[in-house]
């Protein structure tokens, strides 16, 4: 409970609905606000394919007893198991990454290399398991292939702005959270839009098809026009914004930071109004690898301002997503 409840005003009515159904007390509802809000977010990148998953997530969330803290993971351990040994025997870590998300996982056309916050994390994992950050085979996988690539053993891990939620933990295993994101408003610097509030009245807002941002506006739009302004990918919103076809964008702030990094004339406005966590995904049942990943993450988060996490944040994200003082706290479950 590091954030005040007043920030979640936009989705509060929905949460109360769930709370009512569950017959929870007010305190429980507040707890649910923290744990369930990420669930309302289907996609790490706000894209279409997750719309289906979102419905499932809600259904699961309605039976909150089965899934309270999806981001809680197995306690860390350095012990080698079959999954880690397989990587060591191969001598290479095969990582499924994105190559479209600026500042996260992106192929720099000048060098042809992948770079970003997610890529740095992959290198840290390879350093820990194999002793060399370069011993990685990167496989660029599209959004719809993330779960399948793991299930078919095409990749060892997926580090791809992937949101941990109740639907997904049934298909893949997640590490502890390595980033906390939320829906936020992106607009030109001189815009009168101040955030997810009344300043949106009468504005044209771009969202990705089937995204949490769209659902949030559908629930509460503050008089903004957003119907018929959806696009297939969140980055398309920046195109529409630059062409003057929309006045503002609502999307995941981690990805919005990538948009702001490509256009010095726009910035993130206000505060995030939802909360969700990114985790490293691996195949369900690879418990030794999950524990090892959590061990790597623990070390990665350490060191405060000079730690590797904060350095990566400073390098890739701070300019456009300022204000983060420390990495998210890991949550563990017993089994």
């Amino acid at each position, binding site marked *: 409970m590091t954030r005040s409840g007043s920030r979640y005003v936009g989705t509060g009515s929905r949460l109360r609905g769930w709370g009512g159904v569950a017959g929870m007390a007010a305190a429980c509802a507040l707890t649910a606000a923290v744990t369930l809000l990420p669930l309302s977010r289907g996609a790490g990148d706000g*894209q*279409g*394919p997750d*719309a*289906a998953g979102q419905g499932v997530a809600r259904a699961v969330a309605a039976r909150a007893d089965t899934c309270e803290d999806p981001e809680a993971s197995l306690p860390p351990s350095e012990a080698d198991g079959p999954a880690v040994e397989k990587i060591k025997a191969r001598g290479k870590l*095969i990582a*499924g990454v994105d*190559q*479209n*998300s*600026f500042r996260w996982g*992106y*192929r*720099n*056309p*000048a060098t*042809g290399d992948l770079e970003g916050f997610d890529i740095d994390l992959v290198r840290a994992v390879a350093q820990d398991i194999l002793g060399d950050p370069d011993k990685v*085979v*990167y*496989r*660029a*996988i*599209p*959004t*719809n*292939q993330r779960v399948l690539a793991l299930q078919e053993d*095409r*990749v060892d891990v997926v580090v791809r702005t992937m949101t941990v939620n109740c639907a997904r933990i049934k298909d893949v295993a997640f590490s502890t959270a390595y980033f906390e994101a939320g829906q936020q408003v992106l607009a030109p610097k001189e815009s009168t839009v101040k955030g997810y509030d009344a300043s949106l009245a009468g504005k044209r807002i771009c969202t990705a098809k089937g995204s949490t941002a769209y659902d949030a506006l559908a629930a509460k739009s503050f008089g903004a026009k957003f119907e018929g302004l959806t696009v*297939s*990918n969140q*980055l*398309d919103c*920046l*195109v529409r914004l*630059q062409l003057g076809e929309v006045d503002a964008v609502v999307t995941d702030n981690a990805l919005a930071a*990538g*948009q702001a990094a*490509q*256009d010095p004339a726009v910035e993130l406005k206000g505060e995030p109004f939802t909360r969700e966590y990114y985790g490293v995904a691996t195949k369900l049942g690879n418990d030794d690898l999950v524990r090892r990943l959590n061990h790597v993450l623990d070390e990665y988060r350490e060191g405060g301002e000079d730690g590797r996490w904060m350095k990566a944040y400073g390098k890739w994200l701070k300019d456009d997503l300022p204000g983060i003082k420390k990495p998210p706290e890991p949550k563990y479950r017993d089994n």
Partner: protein
Amino acid sequence: MAHPPLVREARPPTRTAWAEGVDRLRAGATTEPGRLRVIGALVAALVVAFGAVTAWEISDRATAAGNVVTRSQPLSADAASIYRSLADADSAAASGFLAGAQEPQDLRERYEDDIATASALLAKAATHTESTSASGREIAALNTQLPQYTGLVERARANNRLGLPLGGAYLRYANERMTTKLLPAAERLYTAETSTLGEDYDEARAWPFVGLGLGVLALAGLGWAQRRTYLRTNRVFNHGLLAASVASAVVLLWLGIGHVVARAELEDAMAHGQESLEVLNDARISSLNARANENLTLVARGAVLAADGKRDLYESQYADGMKALGRRLAQARALADDPQGGLPVTDATAKADEWRKRHTAARATDDGGDYEGALAKVIGGKGSTGECFNGVDAALEKALAHEQAEFTRAAEGGRGALTGLPLGAAILAVVGAAGAVLGIGRRLSEYR
């Protein structure tokens, strides 16, 4: 009693003149010279009418055939070129984009040539088209959309050069504009121009029924007049009527044969030229669409999914394009009626098959995570899908050039078959009418 009749005679003088005229005609029809005069006038009128109608009907058809050759078919071909240039520009833009920040010179030039060609052909089409017609509206829409499209492509290039993924988003937006606005407008323009061609063609090959009917009637009239003369005078030939008959028969034969030949040539032009051209144009555009989508699959890198939320949008559009290409090539091969037309189509089919194989391999490479490897397999030189696409495009261009030449040759032949017929018909009709009048006059003089 003498008074009243005088009054009666003086009162209706007009009626008397009218009645007198009728009486005289009646008398004329009952006396031989009178009958001859009427027959001569009728036969001469029939021959003149036959000639005039023939000249009029055939100059109509000749104009329509001329329109087919010089106006509507070239406009239809131009509309197809506009469509092709736009689709080619889109595919060249995507290929150049994929090659990285520094776009290869040849792709850049190809894109610019395509845009220049499309603009020039649009300007040309506009001068031949009413701005309020359906074609005129499509031309106006294309003229508005084209600069917007090129603007988006330039933005895509600028961002790509800076190394920003936003460039890819702009390129996809440009492609969306192209496929949802420009290409449909170009297709409607092509359809409109092609239907004008169809109208001109139908007009050119319509049977000249009135002319043929009048010709038969004139010959029958002349024959009857000659038979009548023969029965009355026992003279076998009346030179004037004979000349009129020969002139009319010549016009009738000329009309019939000329039209049949023109019709056959035009039908040949349409069946073997235009139909092949349409199918080949469709095939070429399908291959261009498939190529643009193949490139965009790599530009989008899995960022955009098809409506079913599972398959990659551009990959599934590529598959649609290749399917359409396969269908069109099969049709084109069935339509190709000579080796020069058939060989390039066979060649294109073989290259398209190879393209499919290489594409599958490139996809497997990309899905395996080797993006750079996949890129080389798509936009690289030898062994790439780009090589196959260029092969398909070149083969189709060759086939199109051949069919266009076939069309022009046959259609020119059709138009040529009607050359001189209107003037010839007019002159011969005058000769025929004069012959009929002189022939009848010759008989008439025997009564003086």
